[in-house]
């Protein structure tokens, strides 16, 4: 069970990176190029991911699971 969820998590993570364009170094450099032609995509990737981890970790904290 735990091995399946670990695989699934890695798999979904990877698809997320591909879909978001973050497997392309050009997209990452585009975000870091704040003083040139700026591509804010990476900010939206993090902005979309964090609410999920926020809710999850809050729930886990309430149920006394420590990391």
């Amino acid at each position, binding site marked *: *069970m*735990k*091995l*399946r*969820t*670990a*695989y*699934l*998590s*890695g*798999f*979904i*993570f*990877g*698809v*997320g*990176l*591909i*879909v*978001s*364009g*973050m*497997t*392309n*170094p*050009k*997209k990452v*450099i*585009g975000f*870091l*190029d*704040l*003083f*040139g*032609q*700026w*591509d*804010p*995509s*990476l900010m*939206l*990737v*993090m*902005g*979309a*991911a*964090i*609410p*999920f*981890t*926020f*809710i*999850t*970790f*809050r729930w*886990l*904290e309430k149920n006394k*699971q420590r*990391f």
Partner: protein
Amino acid sequence: MTIDWLAFTPWSAIIGGVLIGVAASLLALFNGRIAGISGIISQLLHFKSAPKEHLPWRILFLLGLISSGWIYQLFFQLPVISPSNSIATLMIAGLLVGVGTRLGSGCTSGHGVCGLGRLSTRSLIATISFMTAGFVACYLFLHSGLI
């Protein structure tokens, strides 16, 4: 600062971000682990000293991560990536990323997605630091004319 509207892909960024958030949540909920990719890889490389019970989930997570690209291209077209750098440059850059993420105890996944999600001050400082360093490095390499 001008926004590159042609390169900006808001919808795919949001959809991909949601998937990454779901993936990190899955690993936290069912495995009780942080989806910090630099950490997982480094602990695998330290397999002699790292606790043995953590070996299987780390391997499976990375297998999932790596196989996702292969499975994805069976159904959809992979985005075109054409790095203009030499293999030597890529290797040095990769090595620097590894050293940096170890020094900072995490990367965009561990500190950024997971750490910020659990409101960790340490992760906030780490994320601000590596992003700022990235902005400065990018400026130095692309616009300053110094490098």
